[in-house]
């Protein structure tokens, strides 16, 4: 009992959506009182289109010292859950018991005022985050050192670059020492160096035995930091368990539902789609050598042919398709694009088309990849689908030496040899030589 940090039971929160204007005016309400005093506001019931449940019936337990990653698509309810747990908004139903001081990082630089200097903002932001003044004074030098803005401490923050701003904001937040830390995608801002610093700091926090709730789309960060994972979908809790299992569950739910023809992806009901012109992308098929359908996956280095069925509403020559392959961490490994094709025909096309992307050797390493597919017509994005298709790369002996490649995102053909001592290169006689000539043409 005493080692529970957060216990949630049936937490639910609903919001009004729709045609309802956000701000009522006093004038309208008063005139309504006079003209129609007995009119009751139509009380939105949860079934009506007026309400949406951002989170529904969430029940879970988080123990002290747990580092929990909360994952889900955009709109799954992650930020709402954090807001409810941070007491920024009240739940509509349900309850949560929180044992310990909560520090919420829902945004970096909350309350920063552009007219105040960096020094003044440290005190302001620190107080807003819940630090006592003595605490801020004690940690002041550390905060300044972490943020690397000593020189600009007494300049108004409005003159800071975005990088400085974000570093200072995170430096202050990083020195918050609550028992329960709630972090919402703050890693999305900042450059790589900054993100590494953030992750490092969060690692320190978790090693110090504090409880951390972490929302991010950076799957690599989540898998590294967290032990426990909760997956939200459509406001409901769909998975609660080890982080690796949670992330696998989430990743599997992204790609379209499995079908008996594993190599065909019907795009008519694709989610995560932006169709500026229309649902022009119809279907994707995966084939390999000799046009064999890819049902189980491809081996490293096998040929991959992506047959894309789409529609062109009016005759044009200016159309292009892009195919971006992302790994399980959501990182883009490779982008194929018809713009890179040298031999495009310049005939006008219209109506149903099949565009084939032929990759002679798909040298990504073993794993599951999803692909973003988009169609541009005359330089405007006509139809875009995230995670349109999924391809599994199976480990295989790419180099033909009985050893299966491991690690890394892709494989590259390469050779190893010891340099003979009597070669010209070894004796430093490279000046004037053309590379390649020295090594012969077999490389």
């Amino acid at each position, binding site marked *: 009992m005493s080692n529970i940090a957060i216990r949630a039971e049936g937490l639910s929160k609903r919001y009004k959506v729709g045609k309802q204007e956000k701000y009522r005016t006093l004038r309208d309400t008063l005139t309504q009182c006079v003209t129609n005093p007995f009119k009751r506001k139509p009380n939105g019931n949860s079934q009506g289109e007026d309400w949406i449940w951002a989170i529904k019936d969430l029940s879970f337990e988080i123990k002290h010292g747990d580092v929990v990653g909360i994952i889900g698509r955009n709109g799954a309810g992650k930020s709402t859950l954090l807001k409810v747990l941070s007491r920024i908004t009240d739940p509509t139903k*349900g309850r949560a018991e*929180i044992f310990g001081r909560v520090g919420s990082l829902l945004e970096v630089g909350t309350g920063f005022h552009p007219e*105040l200097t960096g020094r003044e903002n440290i005190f302001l932001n620190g107080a807003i985050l819940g630090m006592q003044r003595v605490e801020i004074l004690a940690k002041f030098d550390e905060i300044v050192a972490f943020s690397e803005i000593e020189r600009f401490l007494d300049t108004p923050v409005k003159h800071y670059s975005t990088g400085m701003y974000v570093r200072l904001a995170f430096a202050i937040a990083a020195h918050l020492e609550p028992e329960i830390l709630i972090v919402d995608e703050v890693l999305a801002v900042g450059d790589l160096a900054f993100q590494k610093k953030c992750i490092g700091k969060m690692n320190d926090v978790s090693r110090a035995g504090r409880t951390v709730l972490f929302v991010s789309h950076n799957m690599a960060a989540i898998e590294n930091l967290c032990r426990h994972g909760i997956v939200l979908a459509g406001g409901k809790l769909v998975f609660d368990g080890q982080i690796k299992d949670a992330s696998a569950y989430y990743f599997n739910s992204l790609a379209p539902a499995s079908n008996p023809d594993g190599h065909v992806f019907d795009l008519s009901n694709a989610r995560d789609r932006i169709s500026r012109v229309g649902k022009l992308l119809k279907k994707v098929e995966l084939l390999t050598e000799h046009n064999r359908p890819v049902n189980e996956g491809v081996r490293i280095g096998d040929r991959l042919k992506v047959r894309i069925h789409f529609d062109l509403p009016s005759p044009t020559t200016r159309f292009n398709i892009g195919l971006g392959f992302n790994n399980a961490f959501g990182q883009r490994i490779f982008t194929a694009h018809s713009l890179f094709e040298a031999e495009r025909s310049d005939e006008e096309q219209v109506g149903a088309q099949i565009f084939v992307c032929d990759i002679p050797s798909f040298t990504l390493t073993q794993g599951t990849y999803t692909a973003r597919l988009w169609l541009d017509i005359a330089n405007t994005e006509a139809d875009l689908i995230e995670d349109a298709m999924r391809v599994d790369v199976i480990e295989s002996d790419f180099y033909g030496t009985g050893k299966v490649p491991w690690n890394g995102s892709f494989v590259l053909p390469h050779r190893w040899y010891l340099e003979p001592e009597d070669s010209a290169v070894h004796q430093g006689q490279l000046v004037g030589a053309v590379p390649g000539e020295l090594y012969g043409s077999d490389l």
Partner: protein
Amino acid sequence: MVVVEPRKGFDLRLKELWNYRELLFILVWRDIKVRYKQTALGAIWAILQPVLATVVFSIFFGRFAKVPSDGIPYPVFAYVGLLPWQLFAYALNESTNSLVSNQNLITKVYFPRLVIPLSAVLAGLVDFAIAFVVLLGLFWRYGIVPSASLVVLPVFILLAVASALAIGLWLSALNVQYRDVRYTIPFLTQLWLFATPVVYPSSLVPEKWRALYGLNPMAGVVEGFRWALLGKAANPGPLIWVSAGMVVLLLLGGVIYFRRMESTFADLV
């Protein structure tokens, strides 16, 4: 242990405010610092406003219209009335939009939202203090020495802050829901000024109406200030009690209404 659940009823949670007093002070500090960094006139404005107003009132109301001033030199009479009035008007103005303009805090951090209109009102105390110093100068110029009734001054200062806060709570909470409220403030302030005995004494109001007149909380506050600082022979009696009662009522009602609406702020603001 903290329980997060749908808020019900009359849970005022005033003790929590004490825990967040540092945040309150720092927000007041922020408002004052920013205001003085941005204005060219800076602290002068705190003096200029009441002084200029007094000059204009003295000319038009004091001399031309010959409004009586209970035997006190008109400029002093008007200034003493303006002192709490400015605090009140400042609070009306700043607190109405305080929640909306601090929307970035309300949607991202937890703290008792009462802190925000409270900080707006307290920031006005700085101007009040500066204007008070000018009052001392006025006293010296007109050779007025405060009498024993000075001892009740702190009470009326408290009453002034309380009435500013009371109205501030109502207005700031209403403004989150009905955004047109803040546009009524300049108009409201003007009307209220004339309904308050700043430019004229309350003795102008017929005896039988005077208690009703006290329903304006600022009426009691202003007359109370005059009594404390200028030691008028006849203390206005019932007027002040009615006003004080109104302040307490409005403040209590304001806190309750504010607390009830508080859970919707993060969603509406």
